[in-house]
């Protein structure tokens, strides 16, 4: 089975936010919830870089480890998903997540943050694949249809790569070799405990 991963080639990302828009549209993500975002580092200075970031679907995921009600599970593809029926909205996964992925319907805790929402790698949730309930709670399930996450599919510069970790790592390695430089696979070391040598 493939081990699904995301990779953002920061040397290509132009902060066009198409990935964010694609995600918003595909899953009907409401205002205020940002499953994917683009962060620009050293904005306006020489050497600035933009990185598109969502849930990285970590190996040995920290969110899953700290969740007090154990509502996360990892699919056979290595995608980290959770059950909104079990989540109690405590906010702990946000503190543990290295990438700020978990989102909440309400800003204050006040005992009622609502159910956590995050990127599903376009793989839905525990409900039946492609069902209405699944869509309403977790968004579209493109993986079940044999498609990859829409954010990466829509990326105009093909900076954002999504898919089998080994294949996208290979694509990135070849790019770096051809053009002679690369600022690295952002977040890989933290998320997957490995990085791409090039």
């Amino acid at each position, binding site marked *: 089975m493939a081990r699904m991963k995301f990779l953002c080639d920061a040397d290509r990302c132009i902060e066009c936010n198409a990935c964010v828009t694609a995600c918003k549209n595909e899953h009907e993500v409401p205002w205020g919830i940002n499953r994917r975002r683009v962060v620009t580092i050293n904005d306006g200075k020489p050497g600035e870089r933009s990185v598109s970031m969502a849930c990285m679907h970590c190996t040995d995921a920290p969110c899953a480890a700290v969740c007090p*009600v154990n509502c996360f599970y990892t699919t056979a593809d290595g995608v980290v998903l959770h059950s909104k029926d079990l989540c109690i909205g405590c906010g702990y996964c946000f503190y543990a997540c290295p990438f700020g992925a978990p989102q909440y319907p309400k800003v204050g805790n006040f005992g009622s943050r609502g159910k956590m929402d995050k990127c599903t790698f376009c793989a839905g949730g525990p409900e039946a694949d492609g069902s209405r309930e699944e869509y309403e709670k977790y968004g579209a399930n493109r993986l079940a249809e044999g498609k990859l996450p829409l954010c990466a599919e829509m990326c105009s510069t093909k900076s954002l790569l999504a898919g089998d970790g080994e294949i996208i790592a290979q694509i990135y390695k070849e790019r770096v070799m051809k053009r002679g430089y690369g600022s690295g696979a952002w977040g890989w070391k933290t998320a997957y405990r490995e990085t791409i040598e090039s």
Partner: protein
Amino acid sequence: MASLGRFIRLTVGACAFLLVIAASVPCKAQQVNPTASSVNEQQLLQELNRIQGRVSIPDQRSGVLEQPAGRDWREFRNVTLRWIGGITIIGMIAVLVIFYLTRGMVRLESGRSGRTIVRFSAFERFVHWMTATCFIVLAISGLNITFGRPLLLPLVGFEAFSEWSQWAKYAHNYLSFPFTIGVALIFLMWIAGNIPNKVDVDWLKRGGGIVGHDHPPAYRFNAGQKAIYWIVVIGGGAVAVTGYELMFPFYLSGIEGMQLAQIVHSVVAVLFIAAMLGHIYIGTIGMEGAFDAMGTGDVDLNWAKEHHSLWVEEEQAKGHAPSGGTSRPVAAE
């Protein structure tokens, strides 16, 4: 012809010159490594252990791109905290059981006199029990967050555990308010009797009323009770401040502040729970006659004399206590 030759030579020379310049430009461009000045992930992480940037969405928290510190926090919460909590709480229970088995209930040496003295007014008892019941609910619902997943979830299953945890969380969050009011009232109500003084030193040296075997003099609160008072005031204050920081996330601090708040909250909470187990023990099965103080509010005069001799004298001087005979068949004092 000579002029033509000169013209050609000049043109060729100029072209060659231009070529050299033109050639040098792409050549230079090839030498520039576009990543040479670019930000580098590992370097940024080494500087701050965090990578932060600008985002174009209003949720500014999302500007934190990476915070590997979440991994350390996870280690604390899942491993360190469970060890600290398990050792202090189970350790305390073990100490109390051993203590009870060896020492038993500390009896009233002179028996009950049948006459009482007012120790705590109805309002004081109201505040005490309000704080105490809130504390017990907060402790159980808090420990559920820490230990529920390994201990309770396998027994009751996912759905039932989530349902219970949801309600426990509501109870924890909302009962924190009466609890905080209670701690504030305790602080104001009993501060006068809880300033440490010289009598406490002697009381501690003699092992107080529960460890030692005599009855060192004490005012209204002895050194042990003063310690409990300050644990409640300081510990209660600390869990309240950090608890509200957790309850109103990101109002006061960023992600690192939230992690710190959880660490302080949970460590103080488990120590607090261990201390309160000791307090509950002494107030109930540890010492005869002690429960009355918070039960009816009236304690037996002999109990008061054994444990709070100086306080009884004060009360007698104020006319708040029977000044005359006691159970001891001694004449006037």
